């Protein structure tokens, strides 16, 4: 028996907007459903990791006060958009370390209609006073380049376009076309509408080349997973063991120093590093993947991650999307859930939700959107700052 860690139970709420619930409601619901899915209770948990970015602190404890105060250690984790993967990573670490046999990871966000995520706006101060590490006298977003999310990720994509052939507005737009199309089959997606390329390229420009339909929405939602040690799994009924999905790799990286990193977040190196570690740990290569759920916060982001995750040849992301390879009927389906762009991106939840998605396909339980015969999948998220979380999941033999 190996010392691998497995996903025993998992659940996500439909992503959307829930003004009558608070984040603790959403997180509690996801936790309770995940435990029911795994056939276990809060009394079986040795550790709780709660991931959220914008909610008030102490989310783990507030969830405990709703679903069970058993005195277990609680990790409140945050890593920007990689928060959810970090929650999973935390529980994984504890089990690997032999400090827990079973644990609960939850990611939650309640953003409502938060709108554009950006750098600080001009405040009411009317006298210039240098402040902060750059001695800035006024917010610099918009004066010294952009700090908006659509802009930063647009620049990441355009930087790739500068270095490689065959990448332009159309290639980025095709990513959004694909993900909106995929979402029509996912009942848990925030939006479930197909759009034409004309509609996508013609929707209001947020930060060229990212138009509105190429950007993920804000919203509310949660996802949770119960992880278990193999030793403990083997003591469980056969039918429970059969639905368990193995975590072949759980990797978290941060961004190593690069010369340009202080002016443009480098989302490439840390993804490449995480992918390399994950493939090596799992003993597979990208060609072995049956599906990928990656971090398409913006269409420009997904395109460069084809390259970073080794799904295409180095420099070949433009050809890759043009060839149809990442569509659900292509060589390597990417974001059949609809991705962040269409399924939604309640930030803390996403890293757990894409583990939910891959797990569901590996169990053969994905309904209309099922990738037939899926055996191996990869879940990837990036949080600016930065952090990259990758999990490789495999169907039980």
């Amino acid at each position, binding site marked *: 028996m190996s010392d691998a860690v497995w996903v025993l139970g998992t659940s996500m709420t439909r992503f959307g907007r829930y003004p009558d619930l608070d984040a603790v409601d959403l997180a509690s619901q996801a936790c309770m459903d995940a435990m029911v899915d795994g056939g276990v209770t809060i009394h079986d948990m040795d550790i709780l990791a709660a991931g959220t970015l914008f909610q008030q602190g102490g989310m783990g404890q507030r969830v405990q006060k709703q679903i069970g105060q058993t005195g277990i250690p609680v990790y409140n984790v945050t890593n920007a958009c990689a928060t959810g993967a970090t929650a999973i990573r935390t529980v994984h670490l504890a089990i690997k370390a032999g400090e827990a046999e079973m644990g609960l990871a939850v990611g939650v966000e309640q953003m409502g209609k938060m709108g554009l995520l950006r750098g600080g706006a001009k405040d009411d101060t009317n*006298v*210039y006073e*240098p402040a902060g590490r750059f001695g800035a006298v006024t917010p610099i977003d918009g004066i010294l*380049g952009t700090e908006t999310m659509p802009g930063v990720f647009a620049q990441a994509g355009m930087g790739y376009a500068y270095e490689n052939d065959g990448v332009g507005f159309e290639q980025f737009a095709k990513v959004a076309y694909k993900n909106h199309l995929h979402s029509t089959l996912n009942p848990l997606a925030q939006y479930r509408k197909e759009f034409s390329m004309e509609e996508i390229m013609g929707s209001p420009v947020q930060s*060229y080349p990212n138009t509105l339909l190429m950007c993920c929405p804000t919203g509310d939602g949660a996802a949770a997973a119960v992880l278990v040690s193999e030793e403990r799994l083997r003591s469980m009924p056969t039918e429970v063991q059969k639905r368990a999905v193995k975590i072949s790799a759980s990797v978290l990286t941060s961004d190593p120093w690069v010369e340009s990193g202080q*002016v*443009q977040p480098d989302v490439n190196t840390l993804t490449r590093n995480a992918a390399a570690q994950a493939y090596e740990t799992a003993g597979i290569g990208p060609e072995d993947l049956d599906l990928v759920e990656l971090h398409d916060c913006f269409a420009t982001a997904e395109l460069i991650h084809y390259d970073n995750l080794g799904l295409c040849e180095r420099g070949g992301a433009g050809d890759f999307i043009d060839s149809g390879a990442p569509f659900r009927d292509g060589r390597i389906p990417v974001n059949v859930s609809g991705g962040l762009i269409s399924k939604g991106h309640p930030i803390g939840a996403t890293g757990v939700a894409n583990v939910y998605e891959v797990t569901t396909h590996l169990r053969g339980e994905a309904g209309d959107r099922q990738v037939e015969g899926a055996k191996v999948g990869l879940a990837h998220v990036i949080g600016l700052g930065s952090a990259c979380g990758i999990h490789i999941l495999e169907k039980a033999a």
Partner: protein
Amino acid sequence: MSDDTTEDATDDAGVIPERLPIVDYLQLGDDPHLLANECTDCGARYFDRRNACAKCGKAEFTPSRVADDAVLKSFSIVHRAAPGIPVPYVSAIVETGDGTSVRANVVGLDDPMAAELGMNLVFTTYGCGTDDNGTECVAFGYAAA
């Protein structure tokens, strides 16, 4: 507009500066330029106040002038921005002639869509606002060379 040298806002109490740079790594005066903190050990350059070098870990820096010429390595035309920011504008990541990456706007284009990856640029400064004391804020950007 006069070319008085910039006075530090924290200088003698009561002295109101005529101009202030938007960030302290922008040096004003007759020959405006960017001034980076350069690690004396490995040469990595930084624009912020440092505790140590993120590349090699050493904690000694020397001020180092950044070249004015640059190439456009990436950009985005921003249409949706924080309140008070005129749109659309061209956000740019440039690489200077001495290999330093800088983020700023491409300025002086009649049409933002005229920005082109790989275009040659040159450092420039411009006024970006005035406060209640009449102090002018000066920003930097890159114009077509």
